[in-house]
């Protein structure tokens, strides 16, 4: 097990964690400020990826398609919020679960109707098709390095927005004490719609970044949604900082676990059993981490609620 291998897997964990962060950030804001369980967040990620694939095909350029896809998905998100989800804020969590679960079913079938059942191909941009040497002597795929860069940039931008702008102050106020924010006369409706749109745009960005690595397919949101929820719970509802820390923890644990547990287990189990058990234990490790965090800090690592 060389140092270079460990380093490369570490970068992979960082890359995965930062993508989870993009999804978890939007989710934690919606949850923290609007107190709404939004199971359809994964569907926004799917729609973002599909729009990106279609626009990239139509314009022939990844770079032109990216902002367009983000804007289009934000528009879809905001329309959804204003048209439908707004009515659920005052309802109990169970009703929100039912309604957003219904949205998952509807979104999956609508996407199938429009784009067909086969997966779409989304390619990484030509400029990033090769490798770069972040660490001299260790080539790393340029596109993955780009993802890490984008993730870090978004984290920085969100931090600046939350801490240094008025909108960010409103978001923080809404997350920590909604009733008080309302009482202070904050234009809640507009704030909510904007927050939702921001979350949707981040979903689209994640979809566009992960699309070339995974596949743009129906139901792609469901598998990543649960991991995003776990990140939100670990990090604390309403906290962007928590979402970042939680996402990095989960990303690293999952990737490094998946990479090294099978190797460890092969010492005393047959190859294909070790290869099945390894990822299983790595996946379970993430949930065990969540259970442990909840046991010691029941509201998560950086709870925003006062």
């Amino acid at each position, binding site marked *: 097990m*060389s140092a*270079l*291998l460990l380093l*490369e*897997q570490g970068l*992979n964990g960082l*890359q*995965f964690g930062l993508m989870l962060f993009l999804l978890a950030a939007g989710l934690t804001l919606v949850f923290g400020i609007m107190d709404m369980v939004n199971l359809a967040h994964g569907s926004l990620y799917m729609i973002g990826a599909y729009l990106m694939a279609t626009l990239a095909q139509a314009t022939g350029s990844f770079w032109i398609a990216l902002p367009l896809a983000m804007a289009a998905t934000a528009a879809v998100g905001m329309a959804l919020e204003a048209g439908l989800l707004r009515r659920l804020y005052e309802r109990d969590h169970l009703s929100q679960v039912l309604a957003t679960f219904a949205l998952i079913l509807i979104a999956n079938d609508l996407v*199938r109707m429009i784009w067909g*059942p*086969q*997966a779409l*191909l989304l*390619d*990484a941009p030509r400029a990033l*098709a*090769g*490798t770069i040497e972040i660490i001299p002597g260790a*080539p*790393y*795929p*340029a*596109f*993955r390095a780009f993802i890490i860069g984008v993730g870090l940039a978004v984290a920085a931008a969100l931090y600046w927005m939350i801490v240094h702008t008025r909108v960010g102050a409103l978001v923080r106020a809404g997350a920590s004490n909604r009733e008080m924010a309302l009482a202070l006369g904050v234009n809640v409706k507009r704030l909510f719609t904007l927050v939702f749109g921001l979350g949707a745009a981040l979903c689209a960005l994640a979809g566009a970044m992960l699309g*070339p*690595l*995974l*596949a743009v*397919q*129906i*139901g792609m949101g469901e598998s990543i949604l649960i991991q995003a929820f776990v990140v939100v719970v670990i990090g604390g509802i309403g906290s962007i900082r928590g979402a970042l820390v939680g996402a990095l923890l989960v990303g690293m644990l999952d*990737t490094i676990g*998946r*990479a090294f547990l099978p*190797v460890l287990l092969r010492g005393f189990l047959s*190859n*294909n059993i070790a*290869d*099945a058990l390894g*990822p299983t234990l790595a996946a379970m490790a993430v949930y065990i981490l969540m259970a442990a965090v909840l046991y010691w800090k029941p509201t998560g690592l950086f709870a925003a609620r006062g």
Partner: protein
Amino acid sequence: MKRIFAAAALACVGFNPAGAADKLKIGFISTLSGPAAALGVDIRDGLNLAIKHQGGKLGGLPVDLIVGDDTFSPDVGKQLTERMLKRDDVHIMTGIVFSNILLAVAPAVFQDQTFYISPNAGPAEFAGDRCSPFFFNVAWQNDNLHEAMGKHVADKGYRNVYLIAPNYPAGRDALNGFKRFYKGATSGEVYTKLGQLDYAAELAQLRAAKPDAVFIFLPGGMGINFIKQYNAAGLAAAVPLFGPGFSADEDVIRAVGEGMQGMFNSSQWNRDIDNPQNRRFVADFEKDYGRAPTLYASQGYDAGLLIDSAVRAVKGRIEDKSAFRAALRKADFKSVRGAFRFNKNHYPVQDYYLRLIAKDEKGRLTNRIVGTIFKNHSDAYVKSCKM
């Protein structure tokens, strides 16, 4: 609400008389959605083309093809099978791409005494001691294409090969088959999750292991993603990649593009096999569907021809199961791959070719046969079959 169903059930009786068949009902379940959809779609299109070439009939009987999408899930496949066997009363079942889905579905089909003609999945389980009189495979046994590559890689003198396959029955069959003919050292034998699309971790490990060649069995979207990521990681230039035809056919070439050039792979069929039925198949497939056929499409087509020959031989009386079975065994049809015959376990005995991805005379990137690896090759499990 339950009364409505009793009434609906009554109505169904009018449509499905049990007894003499005036129509051939074929239950087709395959993977038609998701990253592996290209495979199921090709098999379906190949089968439909065969039916079209026989004038909408097979063996003289009009065909009712009932299509279901297993969405890559054994559970869904099982539910669809139950519906097709019990509600739709199909005479023949076919279509499944993936062996894990087939293994979940097949017991119910055999118990119902319905024939299963597999145009793809060929698990070792049904080639040996669990061989069934109701199971026929018109493609290959899972190990075969990998055995061929194992022999080729061994013949070429590679000494340190890294192996990757998905962790499911056909994946294990694949690496067993490869190792049956490649006796050299392996610097890694990795089983990935079926359906996995991100291979960052595996590629990092591969790089660290420093093999002199890599053999993968990753069908459909899995292979597309792996090869793209393999190229992106800068490994393609350093370490040659080998695979069976599943990881190197038209669907992968379309998705990956130029990066596929120069890859060797194995197959029992290719578009340039020269006989009249193959020429007609390839030309009409391209005309009707606007794309080049893969080996999956050829298998779907041959399944149609096999059924046609057998139904014709029993003159439409498919209820006579032992006669129908004998007719299927005869395999009296002209396969697009040339000569075709079944072994006693109902798996094919056939030649396997070495293919190379290169530009053809029209400048298109496609496969070309450059050699024959095995002649009249049968599978390794037939001896344990007691049929």
